[in-house]
């Protein structure tokens, strides 16, 4: 490999600046929200949100902690759904991947196509909604937050491709030794496929943590809503209050002025998104690996 020490050219400086600027812009909203959650409403109205709080206050967090019952409940829902959903989706998708990667299985080809079709064609949300509410009776059940996302063609194929790349002799010799299919899957294939399992686990966990769609469509009871829906509800309530304040009494306006409504919203973002940001540095390389594997062959 020819390694030449390169000079710093104007082009290189531009590249460095471009990359740095984009990274800064990616980071900016996060910092703005943290700062915003610590800014008083009057300062926000006077100057807008900035990177450093102009008038420091923890009122927003006080408001959240005095009303913490619903937040804790929503946290419980989200954590529960994420843990159960991720475990379930990892299990059923990897089992399916194992099955469709068996070359001599009668019907493996059919099962492959069965999974593939769900990637290519979708009934859309209207029939989906009718099936979920009228036939599967998922309205206001926790199953509505777990089951619809559990089986994923994308994850099945990601794991299948990994299984396929493993030497077939592993399987055959275990078969000769009398191991059952499930045992081979559990004792040989899953442990050897740890990298791809980690990637799928993280993608699934992220999808469950960030999900609000199933809450929006299938959950009507407020106490069963996950965190992301709670975040949405707070936005809607604040919008409602804002709209009301235009015609409200001076007393109401004064209340609104003191209540750090934007701040509350941003503090809730800090609380709900915080866990993702905290684990991100440790897990991001698995995502990168997953994308690279997936982009080589879907």
């Amino acid at each position, binding site marked *: 490999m020819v390694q030449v020490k390169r000079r710093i050219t104007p082009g290189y400086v531009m590249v460095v600046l471009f990359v740095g600027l984009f990274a800064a812009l990616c980071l900016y909203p996060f910092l703005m929200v943290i700062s915003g959650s610590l800014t008083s409403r009057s300062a926000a109205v006077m100057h807008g949100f900035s990177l450093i709080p102009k008038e420091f206050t923890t009122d927003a967090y006080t408001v959240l902690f005095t009303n913490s019952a619903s937040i804790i409940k929503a946290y419980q829902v989200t954590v529960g759904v994420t843990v159960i959903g991720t475990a379930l989706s990892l299990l059923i998708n990897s089992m399916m991947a194992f099955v469709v990667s068996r070359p001599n299985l009668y019907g493996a080809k059919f099962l492959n196509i069965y999974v593939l079709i769900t990637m290519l064609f979708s009934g*859309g949300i209207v*029939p989906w909604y009718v*099936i979920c509410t009228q036939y599967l009776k998922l309205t206001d059940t926790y199953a509505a937050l777990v089951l619809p996302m559990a089986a994923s063609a994308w994850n099945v194929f990601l794991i299948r491709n990994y299984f396929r790349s493993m030497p077939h002799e592993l399987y055959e010799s275990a078969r000769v030794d009398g191991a059952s299919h499930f045992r081979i899957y559990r004792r040989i294939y899953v442990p050897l496929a740890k990298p791809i399992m980690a990637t799928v686990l993280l993608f699934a966990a992220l999808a469950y943590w960030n999900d609000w769609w199933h809450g929006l469509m299938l959950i009507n009871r407020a106490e069963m809503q996950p965190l992301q829906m709670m975040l949405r509800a707070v936005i809607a309530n604040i919008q409602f209050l804002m709209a009301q304040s235009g015609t409200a009494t001076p007393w109401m306006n004064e209340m609104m002025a003191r209540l750090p409504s934007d701040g509350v919203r941003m503090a809730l973002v800090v609380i709900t998104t915080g866990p993702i940001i905290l684990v991100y540095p440790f897990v991001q390389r698995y995502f*990168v690996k997953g994308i690279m594997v997936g982009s*080589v062959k879907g």
Partner: protein
Amino acid sequence: MTDKLNRKKIRRIFGDWQLYAMALPCVALLFAFAYMPMGGLILAFKRVTDFSVGIFRSPWADPWYRNFELLFRGNPAALSAMRNTLFMNFLFISVGTVFALALALSFNEIRRPFYKRLTQSISFLPYFISTVVIGIFVSGMLAFETGSVTNLIHSITGERIRFYMEPGYWPGIMLAVNIWRLGGFNAIIYLAAISGIDPQLYEAAEIDGASRMQQTWHVTLPLLVPTIIILTILAIGRIMNADFGLFFNVTRDVASLYPTMDVLDTYIYRALRRSGDIGISTATGFFQSVVSFALVIVSNKLANKIEKGSALF
């Protein structure tokens, strides 16, 4: 003879019963949440006033294309939603691809591993954030009174823009949001392709006296063309589908932004859950599903023609 063969086959199938049992949960869930809704598409040809009657017991529409007539005749909102979907996806595909490519090539040039890793990790972070939170980020910048961008513009020009009342700004805003969210993610895909390029090509170019810029232009880019074409074709296959969360949460579903920001997915949602135009929403959904399917099939065939094995099937 054939009897014997059949028996052998049956014995093999019974011997593999564990495998079929392992496939069952996934098969069942896909059946419930993917295949049953596909069957439910016949709703588009039914006259539905109340979902509790069920898909099969609802009477047929009269005439059979009644719902489609409602959709296509004198329904400017649906046509506008279709136009917006196509236009926004066109923007995302064209500008988004150029940006992701520029970002990937830039990352590839950075010589300090620490700076490269740091900037790359940060640029990938927005991909992890839900659209609900992105909506709050955007309103933190664009809100009339408190938005940081609104205030910045105010301090320069002395004017405050009511962003949430002006649909004209939003194609640009949404494009920026989409690049912010997916730029780092897409750059990684291109970086993966770049890392697959034979280093000997660069050595040869260097010996021939090519500068770094020339190497990028004459070696890296031409070798990326197949990847670019394939990703673009696959994206065109999904051009009828918009990201519901993005358009629903980031615009806060404000009615004044519908002229440019109402896409097929948000239109169908509203027709289904709010206005109760079940007929129109099923017809729109049917139209979207069928056209998408045709586009996906054609685009995958095309991608496969350019590079074998690059498509979904």
